[in-house]
């Protein structure tokens, strides 16, 4: 690992998975260029929690998808959530796995403690979830039971399974989000204060 200080912010840049055993349970890609992060997180096993105090954005879509999981790439249904251009109020991802008979938690966190700010800019956010709780508000023209294959995130198809449920809206506001996720993709993650990636012994949860 290499540490790089940018202004008053200390960044820990991780170019690959941290340990061979953890690689079997997690595929985590982080790349940094020009001050922005590209985050891609695919859970191969174990449970993954995502917590954020809020998400606001536009070009909002929800579509049922069949996502491959596990070593055998068995397809499992999930709800794919897409936001074209958005901002997040704090971020925490906790991936709990058993390695060599012992529990570990991969913990990714970032953000400030101010609930009044959505300090993290995210564009083209995609989450595959099996369970999400939130105060949900969708605005503009809302279309419910849209053919999932036609649901867009901006001008791009969300990848919904044909002849499945979809929802489309022009804007979205989510508060107090707690989700169980399979995949997280944030191609353009910017302005993340206090960004940390840690591997912790034991079973940990997002606050």
């Amino acid at each position, binding site marked *: 690992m290499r540490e790089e200080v940018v202004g008053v912010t200390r960044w820990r840049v991780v170019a690959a998975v941290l340990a061979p055993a953890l690689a079997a349970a997690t595929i985590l890609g982080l790349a940094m260029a020009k001050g922005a992060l590209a985050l891609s997180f695919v859970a191969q096993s174990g449970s993954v929690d995502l917590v954020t105090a809020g998400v606001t954005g536009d070009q909002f879509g929800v579509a049922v998808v069949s996502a491959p999981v596990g070593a055998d790439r068995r397809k499992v249904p999930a709800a794919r959530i897409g936001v074209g251009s958005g901002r997040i109020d704090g971020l925490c991802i906790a991936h709990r796995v058993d390695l060599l008979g012992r529990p570990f938690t991969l913990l990714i966190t970032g953000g400030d403690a101010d609930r009044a700010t959505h300090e993290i800019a995210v564009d083209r956010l995609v989450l595959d979830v099996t369970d999400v709780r939130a*105060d949900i508000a969708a605005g503009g*023209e809302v279309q419910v039971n849209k*053919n999932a294959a036609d649901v867009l995130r901006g001008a791009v198809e969300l990848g919904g399974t044909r*002849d499945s449920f979809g929802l489309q809206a022009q804007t979205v506001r989510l508060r107090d989000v707690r989700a169980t996720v399979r995949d997280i993709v944030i191609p353009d993650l910017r302005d993340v204060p206090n960004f940390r990636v840690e591997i912790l012994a034991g079973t940990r949860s997002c606050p």
Partner: protein
Amino acid sequence: MRVRCRRLVPLVLVGMLAVGTAAGAAPWVPSADPVPGFLPEATPVRVRAPDVRISDLAAIVEDQPIALAGGKRSPGGTVMLRFARIELDQVTLDQNRAGFTLAITDGGSGSKAASIGGTGGTVELWGVLRSLRICLSAGCTDVRPLVPLLPSLIASGRLPKVIRGEDLDIDIYALRAKAPAGDFGLRLPGGRVTVTGR
């Protein structure tokens, strides 16, 4: 008493209709907007709520089947409803498919209920009604036999601004909500979305 109330509500509605007709009510004119403006999925979403409140009911039209994905059409009993807003207490939306169930729920009621639409907004839905009891001054009754009367009552302007309903159970093939600028057309304050394999 319950049987008497059930008989009274239709009589009250017929009375309202007679007055409205005598006053020369204007006929309902269908919207010029595309129906419904997107291609719906062929399997409906089942929406259930023990208590609902419908604001500014503007239209209810029978026999409005719509085109669905895969070259299919919704059943002949599809009704189209147009209103400004609906609040739904303890609502569940679920869709059972081969291998999994999608569920969207909100356990809130009253001021914390889920809602679709808003003041000055428009909600249109196409669905097949399994049950709904509307509650007027004379009591609550099954709305389905009364659907042929409702368009004239709406045109007469004699329905309450907010209609309370019980035991809503409807298969929705498509729903479109437009809210005024700055407002939200869909709110689930205590929302939960789950996808469960079966």
